[in-house]
C-alpha cells in the first residue's frame, strides 16, 4: 500500500514536472510546431495562429489550428518559403477577449512572429487587431465569414462577406421559397449588420421583410416568434439566431408545421458542423450559402484531395468546414504564401503590398484572389440545401463573387 502511494507520488511529480517544464518553455496554452529541417542561414519564418482552442467554439478553433498545421507542413515539405523553413506558433484565444490579448502579445513580443492569422468571432477580431496591427506592427489575416466593414490597413479578410453570402443567395430564395421573409436574429453585431444588407437585397429583388426581430443570445424558447412566422404566412425564414437557440427554434418551427406548409429555412452560417444540432427531418430543405461544402469533393478533384489530406491527418470531430473558418484559414495562408513569394522578403509593408493583389489558382471551393485596395477576397460561392442530413449543391456563382467591402 505504502509502495503504491510512493509510486503514485513519484509519477505525479514527474508528470507535473513535465507539464511545468513545458509551460515554462512556451507559456500555458502555447504550442510550437517546428519544421524537421532548420539549416537555413536566415532562420525560420514565424507564423502565428491565435484561435479558440478552448471554450464554446473550440471545435472551430481546433479545426483552424489543424488546417494551419497541414498547410505549413505542406509548405515546409515543399522546401519552405524563400528557402527558409516556417515555424508555427499557436496560441489559444480561449473564446475570451482578455485572455486572448495577453496570448497574442506573446506571439508578437516574445515569439516575434511575421504574421498572425486567427480570431473567429468579430469581438475577438476587434480585441486582438490592435495589439497585432497597430501596436505590434504585424500583418493580420482574419479567416471567418463576418458582417464586413473591417477596413484596417494590414488586416486582410479571407472569409465571405454579406455581399458574397446574399447577392446570389437571396434571389435564389425568392425563386425557391417565396417573397415574404422573416429575419429572426441573435442580438449582436453580425446579425444586425448582415440584416441591413440582406434587407436591401430582399427588397431590391421584389421581396418583403415581414419582421426583423432580435433575441437575447441565450434565449431557447421561441414560441412567440414561431407563432408570428406561422400566422403571417412567412415563406422564408432567413435565420441568424445562433446556438444554443437555433436548435430549439428550428424544432419549434418544424413542430408548428412550417416546413409541412412549404416554408423554406435559410441560414448562411450553416455548414457540416451545425447539421447535427437538429434531426434531419427538422431542417429538411434548409438552404445555406458558403464558399465550400464537403459535397463539392464529388465534383472538384482539388477539394477531394484537400479534404482527404485533412481527414487523414486529423480524423475525429474537428471538421474541415466553411462555417468554422477552416476554409478561410487555408485560403489566408496560401494567399500569404503567394504574397511572400512575390515580395521576396518578409517585412510587413512588402508582404502587405503583395498580398493586396495576391491570387491562388486552387483553394477550397475554387480559386481566390484579393481585390486590390480592399483587403477582402473574391471567391466562388455555393448555395446548398440540406437533404436527409447532408448537403446538396443547388446553385453556384458564375466565377468569383466580389466582397464589396471598403
Amino acid at each position, binding site marked *: 500500500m505504502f509502495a503504491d502511494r510512493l509510486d503514485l507520488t513519484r509519477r505525479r511529480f514527474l508528470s507535473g514536472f513535465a507539464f511545468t517544464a513545458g509551460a515554462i518553455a512556451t507559456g500555458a496554452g502555447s504550442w510550437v510546431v517546428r519544421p524537421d529541417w532548420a539549416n537555413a542561414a536566415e532562420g525560420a519564418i514565424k507564423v502565428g495562429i491565435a484561435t479558440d482552442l478552448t471554450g464554446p467554439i473550440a471545435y472551430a478553433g481546433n479545426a483552424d489550428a489543424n488546417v494551419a498545421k497541414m498547410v505549413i507542413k505542406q509548405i515546409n515539405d515543399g522546401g519552405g518559403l524563400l528557402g527558409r523553413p516556417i515555424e508555427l506558433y499557436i496560441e489559444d484565444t480561449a473564446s475570451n477577449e482578455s485572455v486572448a490579448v495577453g496570448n497574442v502579445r506573446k506571439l508578437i513580443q516574445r515569439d516575434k512572429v511575421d504574421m498572425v492569422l486567427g480570431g473567429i468571432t468579430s469581438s475577438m477580431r476587434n480585441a486582438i487587431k490592435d495589439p497585432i496591427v497597430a501596436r505590434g506592427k504585424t500583418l493580420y489575416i482574419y479567416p471567418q465569414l463576418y458582417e464586413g466593414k473591417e477596413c484596417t490597413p494590414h488586416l486582410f479578410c479571407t472569409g465571405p462577406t454579406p455581399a458574397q453570402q446574399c447577392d446570389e443567395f437571396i434571389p435564389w430564395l425568392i425563386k425557391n421559397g417565396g417573397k415574404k421573409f422573416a429575419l429572426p436574429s441573435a442580438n449582436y453585431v453580425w446579425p444586425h449588420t448582415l440584416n441591413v444588407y440582406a434587407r436591401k437585397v430582399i427588397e431590391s429583388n421584389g421581396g418583403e421583410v415581414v419582421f426583423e426581430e432580435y433575441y437575447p443570445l441565450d434565449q431557447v*424558447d421561441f414560441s*412567440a416568434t414561431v*407563432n408570428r412566422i406561422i400566422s403571417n404566412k412567412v415563406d422564408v425564414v432567413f435565420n441568424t439566431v445562433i446556438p*444554443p437557440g437555433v436548435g430549439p427554434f428550428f424544432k419549434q418551427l418544424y*413542430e408548428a408545421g412550417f416546413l409541412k406548409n412549404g416554408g423554406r429555412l435559410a441560414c448562411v452560417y450553416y455548414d457540416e458542423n451545425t447539421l*447535427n444540432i437538429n434531426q434531419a427531418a427538422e431542417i429538411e430543405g434548409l438552404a445555406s450559402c458558403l464558399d465550400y461544402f464537403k459535397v463539392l469533393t464529388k465534383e472538384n478533384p482539388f477539394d477531394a484531395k484537400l479534404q482527404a489530406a485533412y481527414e487523414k491527418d486529423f480524423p475525429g470531430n474537428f471538421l474541415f468546414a466553411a462555417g468554422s473558418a477552416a476554409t478561410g484559414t487555408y485560403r489566408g495562408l496560401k494567399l500569404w504564401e503567394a504574397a511572400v513569394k512575390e515580395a521576396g522578403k518578409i517585412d510587413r509593408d512588402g508582404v502587405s503590398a503583395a498580398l493586396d493583389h495576391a491570387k491562388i489558382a486552387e483553394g477550397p471551393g475554387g480559386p481566390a484572389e484579393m481585390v486590390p485596395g480592399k483587403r477582402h477576397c473574391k471567391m466562388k460561392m455555393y448555395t446548398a440545401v440540406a437533404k436527409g442530413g447532408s448537403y446538396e449543391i443547388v446553385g453556384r456563382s458564375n466565377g468569383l463573387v466580389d466582397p464589396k467591402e471598403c
Partner: protein
Amino acid sequence: MASTFVAAFEILSFGAIIVLVVLGLGIIASMMGIFNFAQGEFVLLGAYVTYLAYSRGLPIWAGMAAAPFIVGALGFVLEALIIRRFYAAPIVAMLGTYALGLIVRESVRGLIGGFYLTVPEPIGGSIDIGTMHISAWRFTIIIITLLVMGGCYLLLSRTSFGLRVRATLENPALARASGISTPLIYGATFAFGAALAGLAGALIVPVFSLFADLGIRFLIQGFVAVMVGGIGSFIGPVAGAGLIGTLSAALPWVMAPVVADVLVFVLAIVFIKFRPQGLIAGKGV
C-alpha cells in the same frame, strides 16, 4: 381562438420545463439551506446520460429512466465527499458547488467536443388539432411534470421519509436526539434533488439539444424562481418557477424579446423588494 390556445399551450409547456428544472434546486435550497450552483450541471449530466444511451444505440427512454438514478447516485457521493464539509459555512458551500459545477461542465464540454448534439424524442412529431400543431413531446413534459410534482409533494408530506426530512430541516438537534440520522437524511435529500435535476435534463434534452451550457442556461432563472417563490417550503419554489417560467415565455408574445428578457428580472427584483419572504412564506411542505 386557435392561436390563443397555441399560445397558452406554449407558455404552459415552458413553465412546466422551468418547474421541472427548479424542483430539485428548490428541494435542496429549502430543505438543506444550500444554494447548489452545481444544479445546472446535474441537469446537464442527466441530458448527457440520455445522449450516451442514444449514441450507444439503446432506446432513448431507457437513458431517460436511468438518468435520475445515475445523477442521484453521483449527488449522494458528492454530498458525502464534499458538500457535507461545508454545512457550517453556506457561502463557502456556494463557492464549492460552483467549482463542482465548473468541473462537471468543462468535462462534459471536453467529452462532447463543444458541439451541439441532437437527441430525438421518444414521442416525436406533433399533435394536430384542426389547423393547430402542438408538440407531442412538450405535451408529454407537461404531463410528467405534473406527475413528478404530485409525487414529490406526497413523498414529503405523506411518507415517513418526508417527515424525517422536514424534522431534520426544522430542528436538526432534536431530530438527532429522536434517533434520525441527519447526515443520512441530508445525503438522501441532496441525492433526491440531484436525481430530479437528472430527470429534468433527460426530459428537456430532446427540446434543446445537448450542449455544455445547457444547465447553466436555467440556473439563474432557477435561482430567481426560488427567491420569488420563497425558501423553506417545497411548494414555494415550485410556485416561483411556475410564475417565472410562464412570465418569461409569455412576455415575448407582447413585446420585443430583448426587453422581455430583462423585464422578467426587473419584475422579480421589484417583487422581492416588496415581499422579501417570497410568494409562499414559512416552513413545511
